[in-house]
């Protein structure tokens, strides 16, 4: 049943190709319906399977001579991310209601991307996962290069090359692991059971982990993220920050850490106080958190603020994974969901509500417009999203970051202090962006636009409400997701990780 999320997106994309180019409205509605159906399927599955264990949803031999299967399965972690994908897909379409140029192509590529993202989250075969992971690259490139704004061709190409380099690293590790394990099967569970030698894991793990982490925006390989986000059209930024970066984080957890748990173990010597890849990546994640926050603090472009805030928040996820304790990792999964929703919301406000109306993202220029009077809805949404993003209680970000922080406190007490600093800077940059973008500066000459800006449309309102509601829902009742994430982490698949270096 859940497998239909993938099929329906691809079939929807194919069907849309046949629709006439002129009927823009029907194309939009059709795309919306497709994503709504996808989400409905996910939701019904979510309501029916509340245990979070790994359940196969489709399994047929694909390339028998190589032991490759078309094997889809979902556990609590995948299900959480599939839910996120569904929500972002629907709201992404609501926020691209204003796409007038080549509308049909836009939504075809959009659905293609969504289908591939569902595919990655649901794949239980490494080869299949990789296939979906690479399919993502091409629609992403075109969405940005054709419908983007600032330096779109540069941003799109940079994004595509970074993704491809990352997936090349993953491919090397994947092929090496497959061959070493006897070239019999690419099933994740079978490979996870194979006793790879510690020496092998020590070089393959960082290769695969970094390969995925590039897409998760790990510092210092994050530079594609701000430029890509800024160049992308609103819906593509939402997808990019909302789900595509999660693909990277998901790969780190599901592939790198599950297959090569010993790669996290100590090297046996210390370099600059770092004794294992785990220490290295934890440090990089913390640098990412603080660096992203500090850089976001000094941006002139509104969208760059959000772009760098994504880097900062993705640092939390990677750090959560590196804590290697249950609370830290489940916090990381929760943060994947939370950041997906909030980054989507923030990009929607910046790209669709503000930029599409004022045609500027320069914070100094916005500062003179007193936007909270003109588009109060956008201001309220941004304030709410900003509060959630800062980690105020009641929103999803709070629970997730708290859990990660507790996990870090147990694993790396010193780093927890640095993270605390990062959170404080996070409050400041959101505050600053909010002040500058929506409220009149104290000593600036007001330059309020003469022609009235178009009012916030209904699709935008619906989209914003959906996203805020999701964040609040998870913030108030995180058990809803944790109930399926924690059993998934306790499943046999994570045995290697638990027995190895789990704390």
């Amino acid at each position, binding site marked *: 049943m859940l497998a239909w999320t993938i099929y329906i997106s691809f079939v929807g994309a194919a069907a849309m190709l046949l629709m006439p180019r002129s009927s823009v409205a029907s194309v939009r509605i059709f795309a919306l319906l497709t994503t709504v159906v996808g989400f409905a399927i996910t939701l019904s599955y979510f309501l029916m399977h509340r245990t979070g264990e790994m359940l196969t949803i489709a399994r047929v031999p*694909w*390339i*028998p*001579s*190589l032991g490759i299967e078309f094997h889809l399965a979902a556990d609590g972690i995948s299900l959480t991310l599939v839910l996120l994908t569904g929500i972002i897909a629907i709201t992404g379409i609501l926020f691209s209601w204003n796409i007038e140029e080549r509308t049909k192509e836009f939504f075809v590529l959009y659905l293609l991307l969504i289908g591939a993202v569902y595919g990655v989250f649901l794949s239980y075969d490494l*080869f299949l996962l*990789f*296939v979906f992971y*690479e*399919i993502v*690259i*091409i629609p992403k*490139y*075109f969405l940005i*290069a*054709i419908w983007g704004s600032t330096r779109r*061709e540069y941003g799109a*190409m940079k994004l*595509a*090359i970074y993704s*491809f*380099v990352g997936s*090349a690293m993953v*491919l*090397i590790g994947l*092929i*090496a692991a*497959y*061959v*070493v394990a006897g*070239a019999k099967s690419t099933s994740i569970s079978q490979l996870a059971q194979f006793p790879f030698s510690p020496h092998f894991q020590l070089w393959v793990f960082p290769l695969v982990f970094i390969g995925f982490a590039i897409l998760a925006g790990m510092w210092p390989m994050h530079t594609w993220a701000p430029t890509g986000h800024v160049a992308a059209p609103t819906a593509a930024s939402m997808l990019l920050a909302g789900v595509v970066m999660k693909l990277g984080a998901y790969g780190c957890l599901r592939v790198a850490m599950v297959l090569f748990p010993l790669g996290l173990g100590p090297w046996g010597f210390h370099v600059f106080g770092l004794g294992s890849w785990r220490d290295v990546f934890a440090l990089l994640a913390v640098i990412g958190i603080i660096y992203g926050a500090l850089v976001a603090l000094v941006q002139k472009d509104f969208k760059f603020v959000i772009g760098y805030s994504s880097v900062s928040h993705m640092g939390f996820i990677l750090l959560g994974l590196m804590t290697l304790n249950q609370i830290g990792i489940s916090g990381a999964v929760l943060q994947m969901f939370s950041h997906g929703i909030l980054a989507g919301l923030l990009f929607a406000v910046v790209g669709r509500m503000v930029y599409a109306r004022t045609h500027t993202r320069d914070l100094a220029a916005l500062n003179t417009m007193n936007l909270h009077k003109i588009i109060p809805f956008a201001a309220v949404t941004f304030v709410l999203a900003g509060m959630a993003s800062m980690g105020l209680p009641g929103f999803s970000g709070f629970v997730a970051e708290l859990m990660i922080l507790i996990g870090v406190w147990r694993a790396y007490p010193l780093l927890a202090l640095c993270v605390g600093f990062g959170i404080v800077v996070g409050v400041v940059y959101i505050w600053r962006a909010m002040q500058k973008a929506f409220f009149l500066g104290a000593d600036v000459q007001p330059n309020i636009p003469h022609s009235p800006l178009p009012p916030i449309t209904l699709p935008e309102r619906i989209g914003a409400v959906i996203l805020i509601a999701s964040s609040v829902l998870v913030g108030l009742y995180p058990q809803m997701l944790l109930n399926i994430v924690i059993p998934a982490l306790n499943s046999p698949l994570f045995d290697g990780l638990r027995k190895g270096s789990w704390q």
Partner: protein
Amino acid sequence: MIAINNAQLLRLALPEVIVVTTALIVMAADFLFLHRFNSHVRFFLAAGLGVLGCTGAILRIILAPELANIFNGVLLSNPLTQLVQIAVLVLTIFTLLFSVDSTFTQHVGEFVLLLLVATTGMMFLAGTQDLLVIFISLELLSLSLYILVAFNKSSAQSWEAALKYFLFGGMSAAFLLFGFSVLYGLSNSTSLPFIAAAIHGPTLNPLLVIAIVTTAIGFGFKIAAAPFHFWAPDVYQAAPAPSAAFIASGSKVASFFLFFQVMAIGLAGAEGTATLPDLVRGWVPVLALMSTVSMLLGNLVAIRQSSLRRLLAYSAIAHAGTMLLAIVAHTQLSLAALLYYVITYALATLGAFAVISVVEQQMGNDELSSFDGLGRQAPMLSFCLATFILSLAGIPPLAGFFAKFYLFVTVLNATSGSLGLLWLIVLAIAMSAVSLYYYLRVLKRVYVTPAATNAPAFRTPALTQILLLVLAAAVILLGCAPQLLLRWIDAAIQVSGL
């Protein structure tokens, strides 16, 4: 030695005979009555006859498969050679059909004749393990190709390219012949298995080293591997589109299969290893070096190209480097991977050339700027081009991806668990990341850049359109269900051995 009479010999070579006969019929028909029609109809009829002949040969191979080995491999027929022959014939059929709408020549009969003769050369190449026959069929193929490159008599560039091709090709043939003669001198035999038995020994004979190097140079020219690639960019750019497509597809399939056989069968026992850090002398390190240089040079130079044909030429050099890895591994599985790779590569390249030829007819050249905004003007054509280009780049779910994946797996698997060839795989995968850049640049032109304001309306001939769709469908299908072709290749290799 088994006595064999001429009738049996002829029966065994019947597919080749059919093709040659068709070639002669086409020639005669063209002289006798086809020239009365206008050039389009004339081309259509001549190519149609050629297609019939090739189809006849394919049917003969499929319906009455022979299993024979005459005079220690002078003429060989087993499922594997048949598979390669069928692949070559299918590619020839596509080339013939694509050439129907071209206007570069009035000598239709000769053009089809040469294509078919070249095909015959390739079929013999696939079906032999004897140095003499290899050399003769290679010359038959090469000579036909030289003329095919020069076929556009109104273009000086076409002449120049043909001359370059001819000079380099002649030189490479000399190298090859020299290598073969040394091999003969060492082993007293022209049959590959006998040579292998004779040269087997604990140390490498210095003469054998010379034979290995010259043979590698000779074949290196043929498959356009660096540093013997100089002819490729010019030929790809200036040859008439069908000739270029033929060189890039059919001839690649036959040459790679042959190269594999000569090395893996004829020089078995002199392999050496390419595992780092302890290289052992032999032909494997030579090919590993050639592969490395090709991948680096092809991919890096392709970035700078502004003409799509030249870009494809450099990408062909890069792909040749990747395919050489399969010969470096020289196992049964890697042969299967090589065949899968080269066949799917040939399909994609052929399709790309067909698109180029359509665009050239409209825009007058193959500069990347001619492809600006193609996506809006000719959606179908651009979709096919995108499919071929992305397959070459190795993006799933297209055939090129699985080809690369399978090739890398078999190469890594060749040294049974020691991962000794990992450095080559790492290089190949890193370079394929580079290649995405220039392939995406092409697609950016097609889909992102708006068309020039005075661009004419696009017209794609119906036949080309259908063929392009067939090729694109094949590339997608083989990517989604590689088993379709792989099962066949595996079975053929199982039965025939190496």
